[in-house]
């Protein structure tokens, strides 16, 4: 029988991580991989009982435990008021059954280009808090995900918390898939923008499933900055996003379709910004 530990504290977890166990949280991806024999863990570390990876609170930032489920995040008053784009993304994940179990930490560590929570967290400039043998370290999310399903996490480390700067800027999330539930996104977009004197004073746009990782659309943001959100600007930004994205043809969609839909989502974001 394989060893399995459910530590309550980070120090217990850090000691267990020296053995490089397979880390399990909600299990919605991992259990499928294990059942299909894609992976065969030698031992398990269950992080769902880790007190320091639980809880949603606000201090100088909105601080979310990595083991919090999407069900909890989608309905939490602090998330709804400070990070509505993340709340919208959380409520769009999978199904009720998946949201009851799947965690935000699992979504980030899986680092899929279509991970629903990643675009809003990137648009909101979130920071990850990582626990390892040397204690805690912080890493901006943009540096946490380093490639296709690849993170900067060492095997002896775990993702502990996610910190989102408090902002009153406009934010939104949208995703397009074959159906509204239980479907991987073909394209997703999250945006966060400040407007001052009717012009964009700051813009961060993050797009999912149009590149090997979720990407920041920096050229598109540059098109928007200092300009008024007019229908004409919306179309220029859409064209910039279509140029900036690097989508591929795969079983879920074609590159051409993804490019086109991304342009429409960007246009919609600009026209709704206020």
């Amino acid at each position, binding site marked *: 029988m394989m060893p399995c530990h*459910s530590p309550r504290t980070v120090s217990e977890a850090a000691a267990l991580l020296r053995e490089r166990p397979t880390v399990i949280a909600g299990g919605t991806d991992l259990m499928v991989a294990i059942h299909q024999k894609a992976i065969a863990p030698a031992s398990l570390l269950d992080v769902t009982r880790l007190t320091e990876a639980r809880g949603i609170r606000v201090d100088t930032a909105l601080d979310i435990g990595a083991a919090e489920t999407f069900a909890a995040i989608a309905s939490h008053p602090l998330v709804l008021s400070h990070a509505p784009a993340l709340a919208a993304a959380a409520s769009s994940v999978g199904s009720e059954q998946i949201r009851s179990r799947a965690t935000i930490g699992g979504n980030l560590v899986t680092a899929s280009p279509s991970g629903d929570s990643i675009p809003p967290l990137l648009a909101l400039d979130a920071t990850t808090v990582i626990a390892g043998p040397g204690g805690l370290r912080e890493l901006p999310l943009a540096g946490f995900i380093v490639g296709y399903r690849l993170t900067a996490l060492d095997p002896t480390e775990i993702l502990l918390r996610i910190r989102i700067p408090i902002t009153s800027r406009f934010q939104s999330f949208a995703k397009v898939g074959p159906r509204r539930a239980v479907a991987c996104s073909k394209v997703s977009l999250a945006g966060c923008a400040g407007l001052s004197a009717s012009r964009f004073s700051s813009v961060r746009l993050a797009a999912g499933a149009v590149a090997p990782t979720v990407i920041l659309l920096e050229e598109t943001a540059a098109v928007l900055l200092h300009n008024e959100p007019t229908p004409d600007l919306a179309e220029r930004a859409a064209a910039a996003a279509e140029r900036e994205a690097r989508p591929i043809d795969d079983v879920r969609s074609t590159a051409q379709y993804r490019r086109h839909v991304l342009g429409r989502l960007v246009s919609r974001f600009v026209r709704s910004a206020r």
Partner: protein
Amino acid sequence: MRVSFQLNGRPCTLDLDPIRRLIDVLREDLDLTGTKEGCGEGECGACTVLMDGLPVNSCLVPACQLEGVSILTIEAVADDPRRRRLLESFVEEGAVQCGFCSPGMVLSAMSLLDRCPDPALEDVRRALAGNICRCTGYERIFRAIDRSKGRAP
């Protein structure tokens, strides 16, 4: 590993492989075959059970995470007179054809009705979005849930 949890309101202690799936524990170890396996990937919802009141895919829950939780399966629904009304509404509306999705449908609906006794159609559709039915076209299932609302005590 030894795990203790509540199963359909009764304490249950078992010695299990930590990675064993809840659906296999239910069907193979405990002979509770009301829970069905469809896809085995968390997409179809046929294996839905309630874990601490929330719907989960039992094909995705490892035994090691059962410690201290409360699991409710379709077998307990039939035992409870109040919840039985939901089953009766399914029968009366003809919301069952092959029946393979029905246990999961009923449990997802029950979890919704426990949290929200008078859901709008859109809430029902959203709550059941993770339960696939290839027979009924869903309309009769939605009608059954609507019918059971008026009968809740």
